[in-house]
C-alpha cells in the first residue's frame, strides 16, 4: 500500500526505468548501476562534485611515480559490509581482475587502460597504466570501485551480483533482479570518508519501465524520487504540492553525426555545404528553450564544456538560419531538398523536433528508432546516414572520454579525418596539460570548421522528489542519497 513509507519510516522509495544487468559496477553500463555502485562501494579517490577537487576516499594520498605508475597510500580501519577488512590486497585483486580481458568486464572503456596493480605493503599499492594515461585519477574517482578480495574470490562476479558486498555508505539487503533492490544505511561506514555519513535509513529502488507509471506513482505518493523526467512532465509535476522538481545540467551531450565515409549511403553528406546546411537548419536555442529545458545549454563542439580539454574557442559557429541552409543546399545542387535516413535511440521527442526542422528546409528524413545496439550496428557497418546521438562520457570529466570516442577512428567514427585522429591521440596520451589542451582545441576546431557533426546541446536531468526531501542535483547525473536529509 502506498501510505506507509517515505519520511515516516526514514525510507526513500526511488523508481528508475531500467534495471541494471548486474549490481556489480563492472558488469553493467547503465546509469542506475553507477548510482547503486557509488552507494554500495567506494573508490580510491573521490571527486568533490561541488569543487571538482580530488579527495582521498579509500586512498589517503597518491603520487605519480613515473609516466605510467601511481602509488597510493590506503586508508586503515575500513571494513567491508561483510566485516572483511580493507587493505592493499583488495585493491590489487580488484585492479588485476578487472584489467584482464578474460574476466569480461562490461565497461571495458573504463578499465582497459589499467595494466596492473602491485602491493607495496599492507596499505600501499602501485597502479600502472598501459600507456601514458593522464585521466587515470578521474577514472579511479568514478567507475573503478574496489571489491573485497576474499569474498570476491570466493563468490565471483555472479555471487557479488546475487549478494553484493562493498564498503560504501549503503549495503544491499535485498535484491530481486529486474524488480527491485533495497539498500540500508551502513552503520559502520568509516567516519573519514569524503562521503558524509548517510541520514536516510533505507533506499527502496524499484524498476518501473514506464515513465507514466513512475509519474503516477509519484503523484499518488507511491514513490519519493524519480529522475530523467522529461521537461514537459516535470513542469507539470511542479504543480503537485507534495512534489518538488529540481533540474540540473549533466555531462551528457547531444549531437548528430553525418556519415562521410567511403561508401556512405548518403553521398550528399560528403559535401561540406550540405553538412553546414543541416547545422544551420536546426534551431538549437529554440529546442533548448521549449523541449529540452532548464539546465541545458547549446554546445558548439562535440564535448561537454566542463570536461578537461573541451572548448569552442576558435571553432566555427552555425547560427539557426533556415534561409542560409536552403541556399547552401541549393548551391550544393539540392534546390529541391533531399531525403535522408536518421537513426536514433533515445529522446524521441527531440528526434522528432530535429526531423521537423530538417523538413522545414527541404530535408525529408526517415526515422529509424532503434535500440542502442542496433543503432551502433548501423553506424559501425556504414549503413547510417544521420544519427541522433547522446554521450554521457561515463561521467568522466575529460575530453578523452568524449570526442576521442567519435573521432578517433573507433567503430563509432563515421568521419575518419586522420588529422583529427592524430590530434586527439596526442591529447589523450600526453602528460603536459597544456599540450593536451592545445591538441584538443585544434581537433575540435577542425571538426567544427568542416562541420563533421552537428553539436546540439547538453542534456539536463529533471528530478522529481517528494517535497520533504533536501537534495541537490549535480552534472554527473548522480543523486547522492548519502547526503540527503528530510526537511
Amino acid at each position: 500500500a502506498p501510505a506507509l513509507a517515505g519520511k515516516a519510516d526514514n525510507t526513500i522509495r526511488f523508481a528508475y526505468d531500467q534495471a541494471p544487468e548486474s549490481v556489480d559496477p563492472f558488469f553493467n553500463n547503465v546509469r542506475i548501476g553507477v548510482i547503486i555502485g557509488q552507494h554500495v562501494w567506494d573508490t580510491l579517490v573521490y571527486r568533490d562534485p561541488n569543487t571538482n577537487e580530488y579527495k582521498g576516499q579509500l586512498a589517503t594520498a597518491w603520487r605519480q611515480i613515473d609516466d605510467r605508475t601511481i602509488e597510493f597510500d590506503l586508508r586503515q580501519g575500513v571494513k567491508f559490509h561483510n566485516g572483511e577488512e580493507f587493505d592493499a590486497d583488495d585493491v590489487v585483486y580488484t585492479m588485476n581482475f578487472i584489467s584482464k580481458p578474460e574476466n569480461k568486464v562490461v565497461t571495458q572503456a573504463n578499465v582497459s587502460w589499467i595494466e596492473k596493480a602491485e602491493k607495496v605493503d599492507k596499505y600501499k599499492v602501485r597502479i600502472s597504466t598501459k600507456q601514458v594515461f593522464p585521466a587515470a585519477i578521474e577514472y579511479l574517482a568514478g567507475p573503478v570501485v574496489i571489491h573485497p578480495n576474499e569474498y570476491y574470490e570466493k563468490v565471483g562476479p555472479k555471487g557479488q551480483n546475487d549478494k553484493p558486498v562493498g564498503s560504501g555508505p549503503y549495503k544491499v539487503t535485498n535484491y530481486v533482479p529486474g524488480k527491485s533492490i533495497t539498500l540500508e544505511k551502513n552503520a559502520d561506514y568509516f567516519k573519514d570518508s569524503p562521503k558524509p555519513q548517510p541520514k536516510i535509513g533505507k533506499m527502496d529502488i524499484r524498476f518501473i519501465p514506464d515513465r507514466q507509471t513512475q509519474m503516477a506513482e509519484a503523484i499518488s505518493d507511491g514513490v519519493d524520487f524519480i529522475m530523467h523526467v522529461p521537461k514537459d512532465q516535470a513542469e507539470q509535476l511542479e504543480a503537485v504540492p507534495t512534489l518538488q522538481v529540481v533540474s540540473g545540467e549533466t555531462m551528457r551531450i547531444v549531437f548528430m553525426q553525418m556519415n562521410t565515409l567511403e561508401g556512405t549511403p548518403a553521398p550528399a553528406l560528403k559535401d561540406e555545404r550540405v553538412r553546414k546546411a543541416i547545422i544551420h537548419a536546426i534551431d538549437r536555442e529554440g529546442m533548448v528553450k521549449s523541449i529540452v529545458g532548464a539546465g541545458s545549454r547549446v554546445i558548439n563542439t562535440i564535448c561537454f564544456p566542463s570536461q578537461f580539454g573541451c572548448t569552442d574557442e576558435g571553432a566555427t559557429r552555425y547560427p539557426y538560419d533556415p534561409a542560409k541552409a536552403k541556399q547552401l543546399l541549393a548551391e550544393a545542387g539540392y534546390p529541391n531538398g533531399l531525403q535522408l535516413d536518421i537513426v536514433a535511440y533515445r529522446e524521441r521527442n527531440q528526434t522528432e523536433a530535429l526531423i521537423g526542422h530538417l523538413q522545414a528546409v527541404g530535408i525529408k528524413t526517415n526515422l529509424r528508432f532503434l535500440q542502442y545496439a542496433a543503432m551502433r550496428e548501423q553506424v559501425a557497418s556504414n549503413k547510417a546516414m544521420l544519427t541522433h546521438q547522446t554521450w554521457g562520457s561515463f561521467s568522466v570529466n575529460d575530453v578523452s572520454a568524449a570526442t576521442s570516442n567519435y573521432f578517433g577512428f573507433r567503430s563509432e567514427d563515421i568521419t575518419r579525418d586522420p588529422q583529427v585522429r592524430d590530434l586527439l591521440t596526442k591529447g589523450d596520451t600526453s602528460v603536459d596539460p597544456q599540450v593536451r589542451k592545445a591538441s584538443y582545441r585544434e581537433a575540435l576546431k577542425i571538426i567544427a570548421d568542416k562541420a563533421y557533426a552537428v553539436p546540439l546541446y547538453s542534456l539536463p536531468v529533471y528530478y522529481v522528489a517528494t517535497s520533504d526531501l533536501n537534495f541537490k542535483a549535480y552534472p554527473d547525473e548522480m543523486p547522492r542519497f548519502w547526503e540527503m536529509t528530510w526537511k
Partner: protein
Amino acid sequence: MTDTILSVQTVAEASPGMRLARRFLGQKAFVIGAGILAVIITLALLAPLIAPHDPYAQNLALRNVPPVWYAKGSWLHPLGTDQLGRDYLSRVLYGARISLLIGISIVLISGIIGTTLGLMAGYFGGKMDLLVTFLVTTRLAMPLILVALAVVAMVGGSLWIVILVLGLLKWDRFAVVMRSATQQVRSLDYVAAAEAAGASTTRIILREVLPNIAPHLIVVATLEAASAILLEAALSFLGLGVQPPLPSWGLMISEAKAYMFFSFWLIAIPGSALALLIFAINLAGDGLRDVISPEGRV
C-alpha cells in the same frame, strides 16, 4: 427446407441483390458500424483536402495548445497541438490513413497466406491437412505479441516492417476458418457434381469452393483488420511500432501518454479515434456475420 419451398413466391418479387441489401440494412449493428467506418474512410481519403495544417509542420512556439473547447483553445487548431506544436486535428486525420493502411495491408498479407493454407488443408485433407494443422498449432503456440515485439526490436520499427511482421504472423485465424469452411463445402454434393462434370481441382477450388467461403473470409478479414490495428497500436505504444513523425494513432497515444495526467485530451483524442474505428469495424464485422449466418454470433 420447408421454408425454402414456401418462400418461392414471395421471393420472386425482389432481386437477390435487393434482398441481400435489405438484409444488411435490417441489421442495425451493421448499418451503424459500416456508417461510422464509411465516415472514417472518407475522412482518411480526404485528409489532404480537409486537414487544416500540414500534419508534420511543427511550431515550437505553439506547443500543447488545448482543443477549442478549453478556455485556452483556439479555432486555429480545433483539436489543439501536440508537444511539437503540430496540429492535432490534421494528425488525427492522417492517422486514420495509417491505421486503415495497416489494417488492410496486414489483412491482405495474412489473408493470402491463411486462405491458401486453409483451402489446401480443407480441400485435400490427409497429409496436407496434418501439415497445415501443425503449422497453425505452431503459430498459435508462438506468443504473438512477444515474437512481433522481439523481431521489430531487432530489425527496427517502421511502418512496413510492422506490416510485414504482423502480416506474416497473423494468418492463423484465416487458416483455421478457411480450413473448416472448405471442409464443409468440400463435402457438399455440388463439388462432387463439378468433379463429375470433369472440372479440374484448381477450377473447383477457385470457382466452386472459394466463392462459397468468401463470406466467411470477409468476416474474418474485418475482425482481423481490427485486431491488426490494435496490435500495431500496442507495438507503437511500447515504442516498437511505427516510427515518428508518422501520425499513427498508436504512436500518438504512446507519445501523449506522457501528458495524460495533465493534458488528458492529448491521449483521449487518438484513444477514442482508435476505439471508434475498432468499434465500427467490429460492429460491421459482427453484422456481416449475422447476415451470413444468423445463428452463430461467436
